[in-house]
């Protein structure tokens, strides 16, 4: 069985041991060929030229000075309580975990993830409806009575920039068209709509419902159920989401394993 976390911990311990061994003499600074090459490469990136011997010597001097000051700063504990150092180290640790988790991914696992999280990949239900607008509540209520008595609908309602008919709008879009208060009331009307679907259209006017503009009588005509987007269409996105969810879990597991090592006192 693949146990990335275990491997990570073992690897980490080995590195730590090796590091402690190599750094036994912390007052020794090694300037080797690898370092010189690294400095030279940086120099090239900044200036576009290969460092001349005297330039390289000066680079090594600068590096050495920095390294000594860095070690001294560490031994004085200047890295403690520094928000930038702290954040950067935590970030590096995150990268380590992400790297361990960056293995091959099995399609079946992604498919399962898709099925478990189907709601995330499903379009919301949508609705077609008609509306009549009134600035005042009283006028809207009076109009509803007229409608119920079989009045011609075309002559009812006040002019506004709103439309008479809306087709296939999701609740989010309805919220955009009329405001959140309206869309909340609308979603309650949906329940009723599903119960009385058999009654004649003209008798299905309800309201008044309040919006950002005023008051509305509405008639819901159709509910279009949401459909999940097929896996093949958005496979890449699902893979990315799946990876992210695995990373979140791995990071949490790692944190919890560390958390046990520490005793935290709340005072």
């Amino acid at each position, binding site marked *: 069985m693949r146990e990335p976390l275990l491997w990570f911990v073992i690897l980490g311990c080995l590195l730590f041991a090796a590091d402690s061994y190599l750094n036994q003499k912390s007052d020794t600074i090694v300037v080797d060929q690898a370092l010189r090459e690294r400095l030279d*490469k*940086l120099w*090239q*990136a900044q200036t*576009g030229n290969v460092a001349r011997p005297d330039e390289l010597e000066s680079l090594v001097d600068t590096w050495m000075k920095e390294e000594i000051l860095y070690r001294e700063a560490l031994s004085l504990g200047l890295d403690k309580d520094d*928000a930038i150092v702290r954040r*950067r180290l935590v*970030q*590096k640790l995150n*990268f*380590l975990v*992400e*790297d361990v988790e*960056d293995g091959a991914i099995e399609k079946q696992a992604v498919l399962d993830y898709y099925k478990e999280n189907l709601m995330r990949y499903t*379009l919301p239900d*949508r609705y*077609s409806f008609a509306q009549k607008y009134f*600035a005042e509540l009283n006028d809207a209520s009076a109009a509803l009575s007229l409608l119920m008595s079989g009045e011609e609908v075309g002559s009812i309602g006040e*002019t*506004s*920039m*709103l*439309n008479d*008919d*809306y*087709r*296939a*709008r*999701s609740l*989010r*879009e309805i*919220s*955009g*068209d*009329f*405001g*959140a208060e*309206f869309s909340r009331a609308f979603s309650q009307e949906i329940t009723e709509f599903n119960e009385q679907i058999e009654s004649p259209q003209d008798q299905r006017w309800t309201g008044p419902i309040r*919006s*950002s*503009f*005023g008051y509305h009588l509405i008639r819901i005509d159709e509910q*279009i*159920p*949401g*459909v999940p*987007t*097929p896996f*093949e*269409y*958005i*496979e*890449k*996105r699902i*893979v*990315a989401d799946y*990876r992210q969810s695995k990373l979140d879990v791995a990071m949490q597991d790692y944190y919890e394993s560390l958390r046990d090592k520490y005793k935290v006192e709340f005072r």
Partner: protein
Amino acid sequence: MRSLLLLLVLFVAACSDPKGTVEPSRSETGADTVSTGDAMKANPLRNAYFGDLHVHTMYSFDAFIFGTISSPDDAYEFARGKPMRHPGGFDMQLREPLDFYAVSDHAFYLGALRAMSDPTTQLSKHELSEGMDELSDALGRRAKFGKILDFLLSERRLEILDPAVYKSAWDDIIAAANRHNDPGKFTTFIGYEYTSSSGDFENLHRNVIFKGDRGPNLPFSRIDSGNPEDLWDWMDEQRSQGLEALAIPHNSNGSNGQMFKLLDFGGAPLTSDYADRRMRNEPLVEITQVKGTSDTHPALSPNDEWAEFEIMPYRIATTLPSAINGSYVREALMNGIELQEKKGFNPFKFGLIGSSDTHNASWSGYEDDYWSKVGLLDDEPVERGSVKLAEPDKEGNEYTSGYYQFWGAAGLAGVWAEENTRAAIYDALRRKETFGTTGTRIKVRFFAGYGLPGANDQDLLKAAYARGVPMGGDLVPERDSPDFLVWAARDAQGAPLQRVQIVKASIRAGKAVESVFDVACSDGGVVDKSTNRCPDNGSSVNLTDCGISANSGAAELKALWRDPDYDGGERAMYYVRVLENPTCRWSTWDAVRSGVAPREDLPATIQERAWSSPIWLNPEASQ
């Protein structure tokens, strides 16, 4: 560690494979229904559609280094309402999907930086690519960006211009636009940004928007020429080969007076030919976006109490001051009619839109949910200067110094079109039947004509189209003032409307002069005839929680107006400005959420607004 980071970058790159997302076709998304737009059938009286024609993705050299890995596909999915992950690790989502969207990446080094960070490419071997796979915090990114920008503007710039990288990015942008265009529901445009500047960061940027489903082999960029007049010639050439496009200048505010100067690029006086070429190719201007609003400046419009609004005083991407004259829209429109009067041509007869210029691939126009626009550089309140630094910086600044505090949560392009299709929306852009907003979804109608019906007439719109001209149009005036019909509706999820104004420019003693008239007031207010102002409607904002007063403001405002100062048959230009009740500015929202006081040297509130395209009255019959 280096190799781990490298793997991480690879992994991230793999996740953002542009071919990864496929929009389900109509049959899969459920029957033949409409998901955006108000009506299924074409509406001859036209619907308002909202969109953003200025969007940068991972292919823009700057966006990529700011941390943006979202592709054009991701951008279009976001516009249709799906969530997108910000590089800072939080989700962004629109409250209401947009009707149209155009990815407009910088053609200048298109895709180059992304290729530099990809170790499998030739470009990644270039010395400038050193460290591209190790970018982490804002500071490092800003430093690297500065270094790269210097290189791109140096003699050696062509070293990192890889034609294959350029071409494949451009082809992907075209393919993504065509993949996501969904007639009747959601419109996309093939587009790009022409990123030129003159002198020292004097912004001359334009977005080029193509009409159809084909683009040129490669865009015309600043590498081809920094002179926008050469762009127009190129566009004329493309048009003659059947490739229709228009260009939209933006951030004139940061142009140091260059965008609307009264000389051509080479410094010669403007000519009738210049005006023809400019207007043939640039019928619109972006009046507002994240990097400030370019309507007017208090120094230009001392009698306009609303001129002091989201002024961004610098040249783009610098803290160098930007000269005022030649940098603002209203002054240019005024100079235009003055030139028309004196010389018989008008190079500034443009309509108006807003857009965002987001570099996160995601439109960012909500004051109360603001992620600004440059990725990891300004996604935290402290970084964008709305919340104090933990301790003052070396110069003693309490806030991050720079220019992000002057940026705003804006804007949107509005069009009046028969239906939500490329053809209908493009035609609306061409005839300037457009308006711009600061991010709010105010809808505004504007007509001028003689004998328009009363504002409450049942067939108002039909009559207005039949007897008058809509925004963006021309009218031959008679002796008396025409009737102006103005009609605005609030954003259902924003603040209610406070007032509607008409901004007028006409010629007095040979000079263009401006005046601002309130024409409709909320809460039953009546315009004072001596001041042309509405009474105060009493609206207020609570700065401790950003709550707004519930009992003031209007859902709709409508007026039929005549110009009381109209001078028999004169030349004039009019546009509408609609103002919402005040609401908290994004910087105040940041402060409130962080539990600190809003920054004192920034306005705590703003009045979100919309501007219509102008209507021009031209005494000569043929314009």
